[in-house]
Structure formats: structure tokens, C-alpha cells
């Protein structure tokens, strides 16, 4: 019987480690080939690894452990089937070795004595070592107490707050957002757009579009194409800063922000200048699905030149988005609301949306930024302009 090591797969670029967030298989269980085994969280993405062969899995690291790329986290005894039921999680949570007090503190703090350096005889971990480690990591998750519920008085303070360590993804996001705020000379220009034309087009062609392409025609594809159009008209916005070098991009890979329960992700739709509306819709839908399922790869997130974020789906009226470095501009979409506006000397009611363009003033001047946003507005209000090239 051969034993196949289960390793952390290479994630590309700068990623050397991550957190094994969750096991989908229990230790000692039988797994099928291609069955999802675990979720890996890195500072950029969360991904899933599948079994390369069928057999019995022997898990070597706990969920929540930090792992390196290439590290063996389990082995699969190829072809074997489980003979014993998997141990209950409760039993596995208490370390089997160490002194009684060490086992007690480990069970109550969730600390792994194997990761604490010991001061006892021959390096054994003592209760004091574990208490010191617990004091040093106050955010360590408290293991479920095996004892009956504690008196309400002592439970009350804990119930008012829950402390969780930031996932690498969230920590990275936080760091990038702050970096963008600190490094870029960021400011935002606003406009409003009358959505009547796009809504009319959607109403007119929706059924046929769905029949032909198997998915609905949304607003996002119109805005993506409008952004490509505007970038072509105002190339000064399609730039980024590399040290003291200004880099002009001659391609149109547009990031679309997707909200997932693991945090915000911005998968990039490649070559939007060459894609039709249907292909853009499909690209966005695929990326969003993979992002929400945690199956997105690092490659999906890199190399965008511009980002579109749509707070409107949650009802936002107006906001100032933060640019996604090293990009230099980001378009924020908002809720579509019917509002009275003046048109040709008449007050009329139109479906209106506010647009916000945040940009890095170090590279982009107000004239370009405002012109860019006007181009987006015009392309949405009169989609024929994109076709004609105005």
C-alpha cells in the first residue's frame, strides 16, 4: 500500500505560508479522489485543495495551524478504507501527552503544548510555560469548556464581545487599504448618470440575451465596457506608479469587487476591450462564484489596471471608494433611484445613479479624472457612443 503525502500547493508569487483554515475530512476517514480536503487561507486568497487519490487520510496539522508552501499536512494511504470511526473532535482537542496541568491549560486555552518551548526536564513543557504562552497570546480562541456551563456572572463579560484573530485575507486587506490611504494623494470626483437608456436596452433584449447566453444581462457589463471606452478616450487614467517611473498600461484588465463572507475580493476580467457584453457578464459571474466558494486563485486577483466597485447593490447612495494599489483609479457605482431632474426645460423623473471616481492625484489631474467620469456617464446614457467611438 503506498502512502501519498498531501502538501500545501504552490500559490505563486510572494506567498510562502498560510493558515490551514478548515479540514473537510476527518482524521482516519476514507476520502475519494478529488474530494475537497482542506481550505487554505493566505494573505491574498482562500483556496481549496482536493485529494489526489482515494484512501484513508491521516491528518498531521490542526485546523488553524500556520503552514508553509510544500509542507506535508496529511498522508493518504492509497486504496485503504477506514476501519475505525474517526475519533470524536472533543477527544482530539485535548493533547494526550504532557503533565495533567499542561493538558488542562491546553484544553482551556486552545494552545498546542507542542508549539510552546519547554523549561522542564529535557525541554518538557510545564504549566508555567503554557500559562506564559497563554498570557502572550490573549487572542487565542477559547476551546469549548468541557465543564457544565459556568455561572452566568462569570459568563456575562465574555458574551458581550467575541474576539477572533483576523484571517490572513482580512489582515492583508486592512493593510492594503491603509497603505493606499497613506501613499496615494487620493481624491474623489462625482457625477450622476441617467440609467434610462441602459434600462431600456436591458428590458428590450433581456429575454433574447438569456436564451442565447444562459445568463442575465446586468448593469456591470455596460459599466465595464463604458470604463474601457473612457480609458481609451483618456489614457492618462490607465497608469500606475512604479517607484519614480510612470507606467502607462495599454491593456484593459478590469477588476470587479466581489463581496464574500471571507472578505472583499477583486477578481480581474482580462482583456475587456476584446470582450462582448455577454462575455464580460460571464467572466464576472464565474469570478464571483469562485470567490464566494473560496476557489479563486492568486492569478485571478493580480494585474488589473482599474477597479469597479458597486456599493449600489447594498443601497449606497454615495461613497468615496479607496483605490486598489498599484492601480490609480477606482469607479464606485451606487443605487439607482428615481429622482426628478430637469431635462429640456421640464422636470422629469428618471432612474438616476451617482458615480464616484477616486483617483491618485500624484499621477492623474482633475481634468483627466473629470473627463474620464463624464465619458463613463455619456457611454451609459447613450451606449451608441461606444459603438461609434465618441
Amino acid at each position: 500500500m503506498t502512502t501519498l503525502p498531501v502538501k500545501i500547493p504552490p500559490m505563486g508569487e510572494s506567498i510562502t505560508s498560510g493558515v490551514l483554515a478548515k479540514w473537510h475530512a476527518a482524521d482516519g476517514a476514507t476520502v475519494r479522489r478529488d474530494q475537497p480536503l482542506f481550505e487554505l487561507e493566505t494573505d491574498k486568497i482562500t483556496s481549496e485543495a482536493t485529494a489526489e487519490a482515494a484512501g484513508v487520510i491521516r491528518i498531521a496539522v490542526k485546523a488553524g495551524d500556520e503552514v508553509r508552501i510544500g509542507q506535508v499536512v496529511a498522508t493518504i494511504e492509497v486504496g485503504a478504507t477506514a476501519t475505525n470511526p474517526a475519533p470524536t473532535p472533543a477527544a482530539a482537542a485535548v493533547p494526550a501527552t504532557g503533565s495533567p496541568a499542561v493538558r488542562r491549560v491546553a484544553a482551556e486555552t486552545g494552545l498546542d503544548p507542542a508549539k510552546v518551548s519547554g523549561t522542564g526536564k529535557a525541554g518538557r513543557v510545564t504549566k508555567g510555560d503554557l500559562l506564559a504562552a497563554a498570557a502572550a497570546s490573549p487572542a487565542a480562541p477559547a476551546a469549548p469548556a468541557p465543564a457544565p456551563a459556568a455561572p452566568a456572572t462569570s459568563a456575562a463579560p465574555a458574551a458581550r464581545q467575541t474576539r477572533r484573530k483576523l484571517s490572513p485575507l482580512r489582515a492583508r486587506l486592512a493593510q492594503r487599504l491603509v497603505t493606499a490611504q497613506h501613499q496615494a494623494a487620493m481624491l474623489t470626483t462625482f457625477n450622476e448618470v441617467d440609467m434610462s437608456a441602459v434600462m431600456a436596452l436591458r428590458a428590450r433584449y433581456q429575454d433574447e440575451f438569456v436564451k442565447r447566453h444562459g445568463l442575465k444581462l446586468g448593469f456591470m457589463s455596460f459599466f465595464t465596457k463604458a470604463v474601457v471606452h473612457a480609458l481609451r478616450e483618456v489614457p492618462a487614467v490607465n497608469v500606475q506608479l512604479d517607484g519614480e517611473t510612470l507606467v502607462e498600461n495599454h491593456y484593459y484588465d478590469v477588476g470587479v469587487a466581489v463581496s464574500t463572507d471571507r472578505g472583499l475580493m477583486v477578481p480581474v476580467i482580462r482583456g475587456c476591450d476584446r470582450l462582448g457584453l455577454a462575455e464580460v457578464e460571464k467572466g464576472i459571474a464565474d469570478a464571483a462564484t469562485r470567490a464566494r466558494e473560496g476557489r479563486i486563485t492568486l492569478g485571478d486577483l493580480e494585474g488589473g489596471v482599474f477597479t469597479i466597485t458597486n456599493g449600489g447593490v447594498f443601497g449606497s447612495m454615495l461613497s468615496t471608494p479607496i483605490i486598489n494599489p498599484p492601480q490609480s483609479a477606482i469607479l464606485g457605482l451606487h443605487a439607482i433611484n428615481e429622482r426628478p431632474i430637469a431635462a429640456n426645460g421640464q422636470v422629469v423623473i428618471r432612474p438616476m445613479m451617482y458615480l464616484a471616481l477616486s483617483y491618485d492625484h500624484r499621477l492623474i489631474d482633475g481634468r483627466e479624472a473629470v473627463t474620464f467620469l463624464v465619458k463613463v456617464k455619456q457611454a451609459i446614457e447613450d451606449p451608441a457612443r461606444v459603438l461609434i467611438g465618441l
Partner: protein
Amino acid sequence: MTRFDLIVIGAGPGGYVCAFRAAQLGLKVGLVEKRPALGGTCLNVGCIPSKALLHSSEHFAWARHDAAAHGIRLGGVSLDLAALLRRKDEIVSRLAGGVAQLAAARGVTVVTGHAAFTGPKTLSVTGADGATQALEAAHVVIATGSAPVELPFLRFDGRTVISSDHAIALPEVPGKLVVVGGGAIGLELGSVWARLGSEVTVVESLPRIAASFDEDVGRAFTRMLQKQGLRIEAGAKVTGLRPGSPAVLTAERGGQTLELPADRVLVAVGRRPYTEGLGLERAGVELDERRRIRLDGHLRTSAPGIWAIGDVVAGPMLAHKAEEDGVAVAEWIAGRAGHVNWDLVPAIIYTHPEVASVGLGEEAAQAAGRAVRIGRFNFAANGRALAAGSAEGFVKLIADATTDRLLGAQILGPNAGELISEVVTHLEYGGSAEDLARTIHAHPTLSEAVKEAALAVDKRALHAV
């Protein structure tokens, strides 16, 4: 000239254990002993004979005072001192014979006589008949032990002024015995003769007896001995002995003079390293200011290839410590990783009840500036102790206030010397009081008092309030 890999001078528990361990490790070992019997002070005139006397005298005292409480009517109880001493001698000679057998079985060459260095690696051994033989070895271990300290105004004469060597073999029970020195030896031998019928007075110059223990332990211990009929005169300095029948020992305390009539005066004020006649200067072995052999941290003397262990070096003069020294030296000589933890040498006084300690006491911990938590449990609340009719004393544990690591233990009570062992093990492994408290102790045993004391460190003893 007979050549060895290792010669050990002195066949006490340190020396013979060293020789045995070295033989186990494949060395050719010579063991030199001036006594005709192996085993040194401990086996011949120390630990073992005094324990034989303590057990016998305890049985006698029990038969006289305690049997009736158990519903046992013995009628007249009388002492056959000669038989009691004979039993002790038989135990000693049986054990000494056992050591000789072990030495032969391990191929250790025993050389009887007095050894003296003739050069850095050479020795001459002079036998009782005056014949000498020359020995040579790559390594020499000095394990010559210690001898009782003599006071200048109380010279041992073997009749009125006696040492522990004499006190284990008195031909009759002295009417009045004055013991100078309230340490382990004086209290044990004082207890023996008190149980056998002597009026015993212990004179101690320090403010309390058993001064190496915490004050609360010493105080309780003093009360227990006083209840057994021992008179304890602490803080009294012996000034002289007026001859007569009986002689009168004079002592002074706070300007007042004590006059203590004595048929015998046992001087047990300590022991001194035994280095006379060894020719250390010819080997280049230096002594320290207290005439102990000067060592580095690995029991090496100032002369290359010469080592020293046990009572002849600094540290507690205890057989078990000497044994560990001996094993470590043998292993170091054989190129192994020897090890002694001199911080965890248990010390025991084998009175009734016994007193035992290991590691840091409360006072020593406080003197060292350590924040500690104390757990204490009385044997009066221990079922087994009550059943045995021996429920005096308590277990006291000292733990670090922050890490809960056990720092030491002091036990005053029945079988304290056996009970201390598990605490030594916990200390050795860096265990916490909680570890001890979470270890199952069989019921009903005295050891439950140790567990309860461990619980008491965290103020959660179950059988005490």
C-alpha cells in the same frame, strides 16, 4: 604496582556506588577501604545502624505506651538491650556482606588499608598489618567521607563524652543523656535513648532545632519531641563540662547559666571532611577555607584526573547525594553524560514523626525574593494517619505564585521520608502544584495528604477548611 582505570578511595555509599557504576561502564576499578567492612560511615556507624535502633526503640515505646490504646494487653514490657544491639549489628554485617558480594560480582578489586597519594596518579595502601602496596590509575576519586566534629572543651573519650559512633552501641541505657546539637543525628539518637528510658536533653546553640527547616515546621516538631519527653534547650551555648558522677554540662543562654547533669554527653554538632593522611599535597589537590576538597562544577579537583565526591566536598553530607555524585563521576570518566541536580537533594530526620524537606522552603523562597503560594494539609484530617494512630504533623508545599511550579516541600509526619519522594519527582520534572493535585493518590494512604496540600496551594483542599 597494580594499575587500574579508576581507583576510588573510600567504600561508603558514594565510593562503592561510584566503583560499581564505573565497572558497569567497563572500567577496571580498584576500591580502597580502611575499614574491614565496606559501606563506610552510613552502613557501619550511621544511617543503617541508627535506623535499626530507631525502629527497635519505636516498637519498644509503642509496646509500653501505645499498645493498650489499640486494645493490646502486653503485660510487663522490658528491654533486652543486648538483643536489640545484636539485631542492629546483624543488619549491618548482612548489608556490608551484600556490598562485598556486589563488588566481587562486578569485578571491582577491593583493597583494604589506608590510602595515601605518593604522586599525582599513584597511591600506596597500608594494611592493618603494616604491609603496603602501590597502586596507579588514570583517574582517582576521593570519597573519604567525614568524621564527627569534636568540640575543644568536649573531647571524645568514649565514656562520658561520646560521638554518634559510640551512641549506636552504648552497653546500657544512660540515666541522663545530654545531646549537644539539635540536627538530624542528635535528634535521632536522642530519640532512640529517650524511648529506651533515658532522660534526654537536647542543647542547640541556634534559636531552634532542625534549623534547616521552616520555622513553623521546626516549632511543631519541637512540641512533638517535647511531648515524647525530650527536653529541648534551644539558643543555648555549651560552655563546658564539669566532671563528676554524674558530670554536669554547663551552657549559657541570654546571660543565664544552665547546668545539665549527664551520665553521657553525645556531641553531635556536625561532621567535618575527612582528608588527613591522604597526601593530597603530593597529588596537588587543594582544599577550600573549610578544609573541604575544592572542586569545579563537575566534581574535578585542582589536580587533573582526581575527582572528589560526598561528604569530603561542599554540599549536604547525605548518603544519597554522595551516591549521585559517585554515579555522575563514573559516567563522566567513562565519557558519558553524568548528571546531578544538587538543588533537589531531599533531607530527612528519621525521628517519630519524621521530618523531610526538598527544594526551597518558604523562608528560603522569600529570602530569594520569590512570590510563593503555600499549600498545607494536616495529617489529623487524613484517614490513614488516624487509623494508624499517627496523625501528628502536616504537609507543606511551596509553589511559585505565578507559574504554579513546585519549588519545595516540607513534611512533618508519619513516613515523611517516603512521602517526600513523589514531590522530588514532580520537582525534577518541573511539575506544578496542580500537576500533583491532578495525580491520583490511592485511598486510604498517607500520600493523600500530599495531594491535599497540592490542592491547598490553590485554596481548594477537599478535606480541610
